[in-house]
């Protein structure tokens, strides 16, 4: 296999990993005021992703860095072309990132309300805008012969791309709701479960529309790819498992639904990386945008050595924080609270 293709796969995996992992904490960010009505409940919900979200977001950073290193032309054209949309995305990421840290630092209702709102908005715009951006890659934007973006701001929002954004927001919402159901207790858990039941059919419909639209936009005909078939199965299974109340399996299914939906876009994109709507001949491809063989080889070695290590310790983190978080833990004395159940000082082995 050519190294450029290997890096395309790795980039697709990084984006998929970002949506699978950050996907549920974006959902948690959007839903935390909906599933929890009081402060103790909200803190419980936010603390389910407390130790995880930062590490999840690194998947986006590394995805962008991988594009820069392996496909400089792709990174250059996309990031300069999507300029203003990326400014909004950055604002959303910044506001969301600091709101976790800041909201609990001052004990005032107004202060927390402000950060709750910013957390919700930030968590909404991140999947919407990254979804639109991924949609744009496949749908195509005006790119000239010189590989430069030649369109306007409005060219970034064709119907297909906007729908991709909406689909990803819905997937994040459902993924977040199944996550909260799995990680909380009592009332919060019940509300999240109820919400997931309502979101599941809607998300399934969106994904079922998104997949053929993706396929036809890419000009790949009517027969779905294997990944798309898996996405159909995953989202239907997710709906059934959510409705029948299998919490663990439901979260597994939304994980698969997210992964296969995002991957199916990249499968249809290959071997192009960014389609030109001006002329297909101007499209950026895996081959015409890749770095040289030596750079790709060096980075492949680094990635093959480090990636499993990263997966191991991130996986271990999920194991350490596998317990449910209960709002009862946050009911009294808001200043110093355990983030965990009682008597568990050596559970991480």
């Amino acid at each position, binding site marked *: 296999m050519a190294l450029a293709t290997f890096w395309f796969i790795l980039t697709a995996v990084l984006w998929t990993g970002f949506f699978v992992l950050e996907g549920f904490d974006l959902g948690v960010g959007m839903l935390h005021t909906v599933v929890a009505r009081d402060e103790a409940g909200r*803190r419980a919900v936010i*603390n389910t992703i*407390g130790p*995880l*979200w*930062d*590490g999840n*977001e*690194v998947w986006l*950073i*590394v995805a*962008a*860095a*991988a594009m*820069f*290193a392996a496909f*400089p032309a792709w*990174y250059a*054209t*996309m*990031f*300069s*072309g999507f*300029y203003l949309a990326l*400014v909004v995305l950055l*604002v959303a990421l*910044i506001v969301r*990132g*600091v709101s*976790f*840290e800041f*909201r*609990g*630092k*001052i004990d005032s209702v107004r202060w927390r309300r402000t950060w709750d709102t910013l957390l919700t908005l930030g968590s909404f715009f991140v999947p919407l805008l990254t979804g639109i951006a991924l949609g744009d890659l496949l749908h195509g934007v005006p790119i000239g012969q010189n590989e*430069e973006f030649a369109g306007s701001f409005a060219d970034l929002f064709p119907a297909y791309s906007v729908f991709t954004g909406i689909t990803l927001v819905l997937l994040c919402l459902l993924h977040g709701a199944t996550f909260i159901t799995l990680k909380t207790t009592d009332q919060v858990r019940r509300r999240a479960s109820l919400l997931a039941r309502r979101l599941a059919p809607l998300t399934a419909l969106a994904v079922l529309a998104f997949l053929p639209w993706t396929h036809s936009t890419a000009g790949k005909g009517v027969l779905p790819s294997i990944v798309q078939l898996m996405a159909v199965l995953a989202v239907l299974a997710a709906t059934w498992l959510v409705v029948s109340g299998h919490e663990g399996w439901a979260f597994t299914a939304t994980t698969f639904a997210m992964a296969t939906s995002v991957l199916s876009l990249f499968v249809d994109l290959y071997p192009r990386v960014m389609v030109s709507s001006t002329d297909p001949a101007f499209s950026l491809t895996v081959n015409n945008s890749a*770095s*040289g063989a*030596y*750079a790709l080889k*060096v*980075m492949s070695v*680094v*990635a093959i050595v*480090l990636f499993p290590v*990263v997966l191991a*310790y*991130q996986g271990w*983190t999920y194991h*350490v*924080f596998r317990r449910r978080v209960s709002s009862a833990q946050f009911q009294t004395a808001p200043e*110093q*609270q*355990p*983030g*965990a159940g009682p008597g*568990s000082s*050596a559970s*991480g*082995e």
Partner: protein
Amino acid sequence: MSQLDLARLQFAMTSIYHFLFVPVTIGLSSLTALLQTAWHRTGQGDYLRLTRFFGTLMVISIAVGVVTGLVQEFQFGMDWSAYSRTVGDVFGAPLAMEGLAAFFLESTFLGLWLFGWDRLPKRLHLATIWAVAAGGTLSAAFIMAANSWMQHPVGYALDASTGRPQLDDVWALFTNPVFLRGYLHVLLASLVTGAVVMLAVSAWQLRKGAAPDAFGASARLALVVLVPTLLLAMLVGSELGVTEGTYQPMKIAGAEAQWTTCQPCSFSLFQVGGGNNDQTPTKIIAVPHLLSLLATNHWNGKVLGLDQIQSQYRQQFGAGSYVPNIFVQYWSMRVMAYLAVLVLVVGLWGLWAIRRRTLALSHWFQRAAVWVVVLPFLMNTAGWLLTENGRQPWIVQGLQLTRDGVSPSVGTTTVAISILVFLVLYAALAVVAGVLMTRHARGGLAPGPAAADSPVPSLSY
């Protein structure tokens, strides 16, 4: 202003801002790790309370540092797409490695540290804070390797068909003499920054008379780290000057506003006037031989003048001016160096107070130690101005001019909107983070658990 000016302004603004938080993070994470290690070794409750107290400051700093770092990563593509397209083959590699090797490490283990107090065995939990410190230290290595390549490009060959640099020796990036000294200098400067922050907060608390034993201990730790790291930072910085002088003679000549070649060369403490349009400023108190020593490590070393380098470069690279902004060059060097001396004086004063056992009593020292906290931030900023302004007009020394690196598809208005957005957002962030850190720093220690072996509750959001 043109798109180029605005793009440069935006990059300067956002990276200076980003680098207010980075050294605090790197410095404080190592110092916090030391405090927790002290707790682990001695079992004294004060060390635990200090660990959590300074750990919270570190976490606020990390939060802002991480999110503003995203802006830096995106900006290469947004504003400098021609640069990214040209050099991504070489420059992108250390950035991708940084993400894989450092960012994952730092943020994953930060989560484990913050939320793992009652979940992990003590020893393992101690390891997580060291992993956070290692992550920050590693990330600086990769980004400095990338930056050093812009100062002194190595390990590449120009592609025959595209004319773009292509990586052909990755080790060269990490053995680049500019990298070796520049990285060490940044690490030491970060430790200095972290130590000064810790010293200032401790001094504030000592003045209030709160927990004198605990904050006496953290002030001593800060001072013991501060003085040697500052001395080393000055030494390595001076070596870095010699190295950069070899590859970027404009940078060093500009720092002295030295238009004509000299041997031996004196160093002026101050000058009146001067700049790109005033080649005969009034130099005040010229210290003989000092510039020769700083720039070449030799008593009688020769320093090329700006005029001579300019005519050399014109022959080599064609018409145009290759002289950086001399005013910025001259003063950023002095602000950095003079303020470092000031911090050193306060550091030595503190060590002397420790020896005389008057640290908790000397109000003058405590007052000085609180105010000294602004200095490292000014020094760090001046240091970056010196090194980045001194590279101009090149974006990659000798390979690409800054004006050729800017995005061709981006309009002036677009960049202006973006600057405005980040200006407002960053100002708000600065206020909030500043208020939160000050409130926390003034708040004092939380009560710790009574016995060393009783479980420590986790921090939470």
